[in-house]
């Protein structure tokens, strides 16, 4: 066998077979699909308006009328949870998309040009990596101010560095590969080589990474919202719901527990998917 860096995209059948046999992959997939579908169809599913206050029904415990209870303003927790999922998933998804695009671009260029640019940029990113994600996100969010866009930007910036690292290492290996040299011998310019010949060969690694980092992005969103640097009220997000619930945790346990559970399940689903994808794509772990 030729020592190809990644067989993933050229052998979709093999990869599909490998993870379709993995039960954890199915658990992750079904869980995530359910969460995404609920968020997408929130207006159809949510029993109440998430913003509608009802002073009469403050801090109602879970009941037949309010399945997951109500909060301090009498808003339905289930409806807020469903709508909050939209924000959490959106922030996680968009932030990771931005981080992946910028991080991959930087990583591939740095790995391909191997000179001062590489050392400079990767050194800078190493400095960023040395900060805990949450701390870095907190600094950026505090600097930019609390809004949905700024939250996305803050989370995206914190996760550029790991993506750049993940893209750079295979680029260095790939640029020595015969087909890249052969491509240069055919007169392909550096941009084409990086975009058409290197990127597709490492994208599978990056996609696996992104599912794991999306879990981290959702956690960061929750944490930032929890300390009040996230989306301003009254828009529900899981993080801000936990914070509000935290203040009343002794009187109304359901306020913090259910959004926490939602985050737990989402992160779990993404991690299961990411692990299964990684195992399926890595030929060594596939054990054929």
């Amino acid at each position, binding site marked *: 066998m030729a020592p190809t860096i990644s067989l993933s995209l050229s052998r979709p059948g093999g990869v599909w077979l490998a993870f379709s046999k993995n039960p954890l992959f199915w658990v992750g997939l079904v869980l995530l699909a359910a969460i995404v579908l609920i968020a997408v169809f929130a207006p159809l599913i949510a029993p109440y308006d998430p913003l509608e206050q009802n002073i009469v029904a403050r801090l109602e415990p879970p009941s037949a009328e309010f399945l997951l209870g109500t909060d301090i303003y009498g808003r339905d927790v289930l409806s807020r949870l469903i709508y909050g999922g939209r924000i959490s998933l959106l922030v996680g998804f968009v932030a990771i998309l931005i981080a992946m695009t910028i991080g991959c671009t930087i990583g591939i260029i740095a790995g391909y040009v191997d000179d001062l640019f590489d050392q400079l940029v990767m050194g800078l990113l190493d400095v960023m990596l040395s900060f805990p994600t949450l701390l870095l996100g907190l600094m950026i969010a505090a600097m930019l101010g609390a809004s949905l866009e700024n939250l996305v930007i803050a989370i995206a910036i914190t996760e550029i560095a790991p993506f750049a690292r993940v893209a750079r290492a295979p680029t260095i290996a790939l640029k020595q590969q015969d087909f890249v*040299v052969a491509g240069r011998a055919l007169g392909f310019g550096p941009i084409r080589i990086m975009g058409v010949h290197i990127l597709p060969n490492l994208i599978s690694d990056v996609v696996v990474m992104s599912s794991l980092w999306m879990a981290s992005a959702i956690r960061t969103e929750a944490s930032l919202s929890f300390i009040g640097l996230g989306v301003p009220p009254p828009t529900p997000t899981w993080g801000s719901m936990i914070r509000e619930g935290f203040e009343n945790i002794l009187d109304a346990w359901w306020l913090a527990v259910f959004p926490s559970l939602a985050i737990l399940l989402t992160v779990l689903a993404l991690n299961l998917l990411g692990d299964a994808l990684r195992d399926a794509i890595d030929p060594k772990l596939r054990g054929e």
Partner: protein
Amino acid sequence: MTSFSKPALDIRNLRTEFRIGGRWYPAVRNLSVSLMPNETLAVVGESGSGKSVTALSILRLLPSAGARIDSGEILFDGRNLAMLSEREMSAIRGNSIAMIFQEPMTSLNPTMTIGEQIAEAIIIHRGGRHSEALAEALRLLKEVKIGSPESRLHDYPHQFSGGMRQRVMIAMALACHPKILLADEPTTALDVTIQAQVLKQLDELKQAYGMSVLFITHNLGVVAQIADRVAVMYAGEIVELASVEALFAKPMHPYTAALLGAMPRADRASESLEPIPGGAPTLTTMPPGCAYAPRCSFKQRSCSELRPELLACGDPGHLVRCSVRLTGGMR
């Protein structure tokens, strides 16, 4: 351009250096050779003799850090390739000078169908629509005799055998009708039967396309099969340059003679194989005089002091770099 006197590629005094431990050492020295139109010039030598470095120098594909063309000219189409910008080089690579490599298993992008890969080269240099380029790719696959090309156009490299991949590589190299093909040990990684097929095909395509071929190999059997002229390289320099007939009939340089003596032949007993004693000098331990002197059985005192020049020896077009041979001292 088509006149016989004007070479398709003219290399003059090429010196390519590598940096080792902060100092520059030549991997190719004083290399002067011309490639005539429609000619196959074989470059023979052991590993590390500078064959591949010569080919990579022509296309300027040496790694940007740690390697450089120190001096010399590579004249092609009235221009000196050594002086062109990277952009101008890109327009030449794959278009008027193409190259095929030794390892067909890794020379194709595993994530692209071969049709797309061939079409890519066409679109870059010739422009035109994607569908036209794919049609041309199909024609090329037929030309290199890939079975059922219509369906194979959409296959990925891992679905091809080594010999088939090398044919695909050849099709890619031919895509823009290059004037010169640099073939860096294209058959070394292939089975002997496949090797013969690929060699035959290369020769036919050379005729059909009117190309000049610079064929790098360490296999003298292949040389006899395909070459018009042969340049024997040793330690970064050409030690003998002759027509293939003259080289096999009357090898002048002691190294060439030793190489031929070390080549297995069906008409001789294997006991008569004579390995060349010692090893080639490394870049950092190049002797001051003749590079081959330490291994040479005809060595004289002057050999390790004075570096011999590549000079004509009797027959027209037969050049040899050996002062002992040129003064008739070898018997």
